[in-house]
């Protein structure tokens, strides 16, 4: 019986996927070009911070009417 409550509801996953894909759609961006952007950003960061690691997070996010690029780039590993 408790399995029912532990199971991740499929609509939650759909909602997350939709929000992400619509952010890209609205920004007229392809998820692939975001991957390129991430790689290039990391290359630039590494030039200045050689210890920067690959654990980075770059994404576009809808904030009200605005679309913002959020980058979280650790410059020193843990």
């Amino acid at each position, binding site marked *: *019986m408790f399995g*029912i409550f532990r199971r991740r*509801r*499929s*609509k*939650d996953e*759909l*909602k997350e*996927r*939709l*929000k992400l*894909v*619509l952010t890209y*759609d*609205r920004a007229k961006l392809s998820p692939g070009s975001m991957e390129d952007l991430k790689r290039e950003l990391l290359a630039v960061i590494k030039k200045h911070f050689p210890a920067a690691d690959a654990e980075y997070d770059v994404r576009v996010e809808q904030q009200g009417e605005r679309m913002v690029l959020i980058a979280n780039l650790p410059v020193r590993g843990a």
Partner: protein
Amino acid sequence: MNAKAIVVTSGKGGVGKTTTTANVGAALARLGEKVCVIDTDVGLRNLDVVMGLEGRVVYDLIDVFEGRCKLKQALIRDKRVESLYLLAASQTRDKTALSESRMKETVRTLLEEEGFDRVLIDSPAGIESGFQTAASAADGALVVVNPEVSSVRDADRIIGLLEAREIPEVRLIINRLRPEMVKRGDMLEVDDVLEILGVKLIGIVPEDEKIIVSTNVGNPLSLEDGGGKVSAGSAFRDIARRIRGEDVPYPRFEPQGGFLAGLRRLFGGA
């Protein structure tokens, strides 16, 4: 809605545009409005069969556009509701026969000279010229969406295009909601869809087998009385009243099931 010319659209095909046009159009007419429903899906017309008027089509929208008949001659009067009319799409032509300027002129004539209170424009699927022509004459839009991934994504795209056209009133109809799946967490809830798409709601239509039965015989379900508070027929009637500015509360969409189903839920069955 203040809009007199309302395009019914969705982006994705098969989500219920034509059914919505027929049912909301019929319900508006039943409420006393003089209504014209226009099928702009040239080459793939279906509004005529959904309304059971296929036997009466003589002239169509493209005949009007190209001057082969007068607008009045192409208006097909409904057999059940006096103030309801259909302007059929041409079945033998394609979307290249459409024209934004002629579309605007036709809608203007219906509203300003022929005394229509409301024109509902059934858009073809897609975002190309057919949709663009259907939207060109509209000052309001009903976006029909099913609570599933491709329909929501396409609806978002269509909403963007309607906003680019600066259509003042864009409203959302969530069609084919399945309350038992929502309860299980396997279907987006109404609030999820509204949060994702960010437009105002005007109707929630539950999945209802009676829709198929009614289209089989060409009789819009919204014209049949009854069906209970939670039925597609009454949902379409509610939408018509909301379009007319009435504040109609939404019924609770509880999963169906009688006493036994209730007992099963009570004792922890899935």
